Structures are given as structure tokens and as C-alpha cells.
């Protein structure tokens, strides 16, 4: 039976649990670190499927070097790490794992907001340091009933809005266009929204037009009691944010993404009024399991001649 197992090349996966499952079904090849091209050259003709991730994809050279490649399988909702044009030029199908983590990311957005407002990580440090015996912890800010502005009302933004409604938050949003199917208040101008809300959650996708849209001017509009939550890469000008936090232009922040992770500026690491999490908005083990299931479902469908569950659009 071994001889009948299709051979696949796994470039990268952020869901290590997928590997034993893959090995049950396929002959799995994994290039050693640093020696990818030489390794691939030796097995290129045998490879029928390529597994990549949001973090490490496939370039045109790799795709071109696999003459019998039938499909590219991406683990993750974003697939810009792979040269999609090169895949298409070959007429190959490609799949990804969309929306697997949407709800988990939204959970973390609301969690970061609550943590920043109620000063929970600060409070946890306070108790662990034994400071409580010397006096009470200072107060936090109320969350329920206030105003939340969502930057980018995509899948994640909508999931955040549903949660926010359960906290009686008054939801508004900013984006390139008004959405007809929601009743939340729309602001075409981001600074105008920032001035009108207490909290702002940045959930927009990464695109040239959203690069650093949250800048000093927007933070000034958010104001001295305002809180910022960020789970979107490259949308927030980190230098402006650090200055705003230092100068009291805004009250605090909950941040899951950073420029040049995992290196964080010391200025941020030393701040008490921020919550810093290591890009873990989607890091629930059930989410990873869902991703594993979807990767396997796409591979199984391909090799049994069934329609692919989640091809890229």
C-alpha cells in the first residue's frame, strides 16, 4: 500500500498537529532548514501536492520546479505569502482555510478591550507582587454602555460588533464604504469616528490603502480617556501610538500585533497602561484543530476527485 500513497511537500505549517494526520495518508517530504532547493530537486518529480502557510508560502521558482504538482494547499486565511499568479499560470487549484479563526480573533479583540479598560493584567501583576496588602488597586474604566468604533467591518469586525452588542456598546464603524446590511453608525472619516467613540478596535485587512491609517491625528481624536485595540497588521502607526500612550493622548491600549515582531520597543514593554499579547488572537487549540481538519478535507477531496471545499476565490 505504501507505494500508492501520493507524495506531498510540506513547506510550512502553523498547525503541527496536521503532520501525523498527513503521514497517515501521504508520503510527506519536509525540506531541511536552509537547504530547500537542493532537497526539492531530488524529489521534485514525485510531488503532487504542496502544503504552505500564511507565514511561509511558495514562490514562483518553487512552483516552477515541481513538474507534476497538482494542487497548492495553504493553511491560513491569508495566502499572500504564495505567488498566486504563478499557481494560476500553471492552471493549478489552490485552497486555503478561511474564517476558521474569525470568531476566536473576535473573542480576543473583546478580551483586549476589557483587559485594557479594567486594567486586568496590571491588576494581576499587583496581586502577584503582594501590593494589595499595602492598599487597594486603583480603579478601571467601565466598558458596558459606552461607544465602540470598529475600523474595518469585515468578518472579524462584524463578529466583534455582535459581541459588543451583548455588552450594550453603541457600535459604529469606519471603512471604504457603508454596508447596507447593518444598522451600526457609519463614519466615512476615521478621525471623525475616533472623536465620537470611547474605544476603537482595529480589525481591518492589510492593504496599501489601510497602511498606518491610525496615525497621531486619529489618536488625538480618540482622546485622553480613549482606548485602542489592535489586531490588524500595518494599520496602526506604532511610533505614533507609543508617543500617544506616553504623552497621555490616549489612556491605554490592547495590542496583539506589532511592527517587526517579536521585537518590541522597550518603551512599550515598560508601559503599565497597555496589554501586550504575542500575536495570539487566533491561538485557541480548537481553531488550530479546525484548520487541520480543513487542510485534510481539501487534500482528501482533491485525491478522491471530489469538489474542493475551500478553493481560493
Amino acid at each position, binding site marked *: 500500500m505504501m507505494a500508492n500513497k501520493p507524495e506531498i511537500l510540506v513547506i510550512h505549517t502553523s498547525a503541527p498537529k496536521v503532520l501525523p494526520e498527513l503521514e497517515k495518508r501521504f508520503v510527506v517530504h519536509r525540506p531541511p532548514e536552509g537547504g530547500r532547493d537542493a532537497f526539492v530537486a531530488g524529489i521534485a518529480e514525485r510531488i503532487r501536492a504542496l502544503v504552505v502557510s500564511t507565514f511561509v508560502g511558495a514562490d514562483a521558482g518553487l512552483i516552477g520546479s515541481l513538474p507534476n504538482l497538482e494542487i497548492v494547499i495553504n493553511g491560513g486565511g491569508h495566502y499572500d505569502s504564495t505567488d498566486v499568479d504563478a499557481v494560476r499560470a500553471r492552471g493549478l487549484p489552490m485552497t486555503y482555510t478561511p474564517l476558521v479563526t474569525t*470568531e*476566536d480573533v*473576535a*473573542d*480576543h479583540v*473583546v*478580551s*483586549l478591550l*476589557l*483587559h485594557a479598560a*479594567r*486594567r*486586568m*493584567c496590571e*491588576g*494581576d501583576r*499587583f*496581586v*502577584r507582587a*503582594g501590593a*494589595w*496588602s499595602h*492598599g*487597594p*488597586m486603583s*480603579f*478601571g*474604566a*467601565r*466598558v*458596558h*454602555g459606552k461607544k465602540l468604533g470598529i475600523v474595518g467591518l469585515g468578518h472579524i469586525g462584524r463578529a466583534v460588533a*455582535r*459581541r*459588543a*452588542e*451583548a*455588552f*450594550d456598546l453603541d457600535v459604529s464603524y469606519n471603512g471604504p464604504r457603508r454596508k447596507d446590511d447593518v444598522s451600526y453608525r457609519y463614519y466615512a472619516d476615521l478621525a471623525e469616528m475616533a472623536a465620537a467613540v470611547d474605544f476603537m478596535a482595529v480589525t481591518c485587512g492589510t492593504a496599501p490603502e489601510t497602511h498606518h491609517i491610525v496615525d497621531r491625528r486619529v489618536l488625538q481624536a480618540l482622546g485622553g480617556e480613549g482606548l485602542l485595540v489592535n489586531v490588524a497588521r500595518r494599520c496602526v502607526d506604532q511610533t505614533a501610538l507609543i508617543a500617544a500612550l506616553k504623552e497621555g493622548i490616549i489612556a491605554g491600549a490592547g495590542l496583539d500585533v506589532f511592527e517587526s*515582531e*517579536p*521585537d*518590541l520597543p522597550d518603551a512599550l*514593554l515598560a508601559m503599565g497602561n497597555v*496589554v*501586550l*499579547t*504575542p500575536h*495570539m488572537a487566533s*491561538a*485557541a*487549540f*480548537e*481553531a*488550530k484543530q479546525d484548520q487541520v481538519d480543513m487542510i485534510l478535507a481539501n487534500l482528501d477531496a482533491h485525491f478522491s476527485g471530489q469538489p474542493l471545499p475551500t478553493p481560493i476565490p
Partner: protein
Amino acid sequence: MKPDILLVEDISTALPILELLEPHYTVHVLPEDSEVPAAVAGRIRALVTTTNKGVDGALIDALPNLEMIANAGAHLDRIDLAAARARAIPVTYTPGISVAEVADLAFALLLSAARLTCEGDRYVRAGRWHDGMLRFGIRVNRKRLGIVGLGRIGRVVAKRARGFAMEVHYHEPNEMTDVAYRYHADLIELAGAVDFLVVTCTSGPETDGLINGRVLSALGSGGVLVNMARRAVDEAALIDALENGVIAGAALDTFAHEPRVPDALTTMENVVLQAHMGTKTWETKRAFAARTAANLDAHFAGAPLPDPVP
């Protein structure tokens, strides 16, 4: 002539009440562990205290012309109500103000313990992100939440949970007819049926140590406990369960002997610890102060008291 009132000092709650009272009253502040000066005692017509400080019978006796007691807080267990009643002195309080505040923190603590938020913050600040990713947390959305005590706070927690598409279960001595959540007459059965347990019952002899080792075993090794109810959790059993992986994690806002917290907890990774912060926001404190002042104002205007103790 402004009425003279006595304010029992309570730095731990730091009520922003002085600025509300001083324009209308001559406020005498009673420092901690001190007695009312004899020269003042006879002039005091109202007493303002807090849930934390209360009023004992001796203080009431020391004030011959006391007309009312205003408690800035929802709990009355440190107020000698019998002594007040014996002199027909009305007592007011501020119920309901912090219900949603406590519920917000309860749900936030659930997210924190399940998704490792404060652990992640420690991880980043310690520079450990360079060594690789933090372990994965536990998904919250679409999971099963068990609420122990579906009172006013528990109901708001349930409402928050619905925003996360959670399935809500609860335990109470009696089934509630006005909610659609799943009822469990047996607490162990509830713990066995859910992923997370949030304890929001009132503190009292009947709930002392309610969450014991058996309940935690039923909750199980993937389970998370959140406690907002003083004394309802058997702290030794909880520490044991956390140390031995009987449950996955816990988030605690109250402790058996606070502000002392056992070292076993302060050194543990899989717990989130808060300094009894359920009600502690500026907005709540301002609301406590405003309601307390409103009750005083009503008394001295001869109007019905907005919040008399039933």
C-alpha cells in the same frame, strides 16, 4: 444653616462623595479607628458609610440626634440594622449600581483564563516571545457556560455569553421560569455538563465552600473556573485542583483571606488574580456617590427616600 453630617472615612473605596456633599452639608470626617468627638456628636443628623466600613451599634448610640444612615454600597451586612431600627432611624443604600460592572469583569476573567491573556502579557514582557509561541488557549465562543447563581449578576453574565454564541446552563436551588437557559438542580451535574463555570452566587452560610473538590473534578481537566463570590469556593481544594491539572485554569476576584493571597496562587501560571475589582470603576464610584447624596438630599428636603432598606 447646613445640616451636620458624619462621613466614615474609607480610603479603600475613595468615594468621590465629598465634593457632592460639601456644598450642602457641614461634613465631619470620622477617621479610621477613632471616636466621634463629644463636641460634634450632638450635632450629627446623618451618617454616611460604605459597605466596607458599616456602622456598629456603639456609633449609632453615640449620636443622639441621628436622623438617618446612608450606605454608599449595596451590601448591609456590616450595618447594625437592629440598632438603627430600635431608634426608628431609616437606612438607605445603593442597590443595583454595580451589577453590570461585576458581570463585565466576570466575563472578562473567563476570556482571560481561557485565552491566556495575562499569561501572554507576561510572556511578551519577559522577552520570551523570541523563544517561540506561547501555548494555545481554550476557545470561548460556542462553548458551554455554567453559571452558579443566576441572580442579577449571573443574568448579565448570561447575556454577555449569548454575544459569544455560548450555550448557557445554570444552577440555583430552584429552576427559574423566566429564562430559557438549561437548569441543573445538581451542581456536580452542571459542572460535568459545561466547559466553564462562573460563580456569581451571593455569599452566605448556604454557599460557603459550595465549589469543592468534587465540583472541580466534575468540571474536568479542560475546564476553567471564574469566581466572583467571596467564600463560595473552597480555596484549598481549588489550589489542589490547579496544581494537579484537575481543571485547566481559574480566574479569581475574591479570596478567602484577602488582601492576603496564598503564595501557591501568586506563583501559578494558569490563574488570573484580581484585587476584588468587580465594582471598581470610576463610573460606578461616581454613581455610588451620587445615589448616596440623593438619599441624603431627599431626607433633608422632607421627600420620600429613593432607596430605603427594605
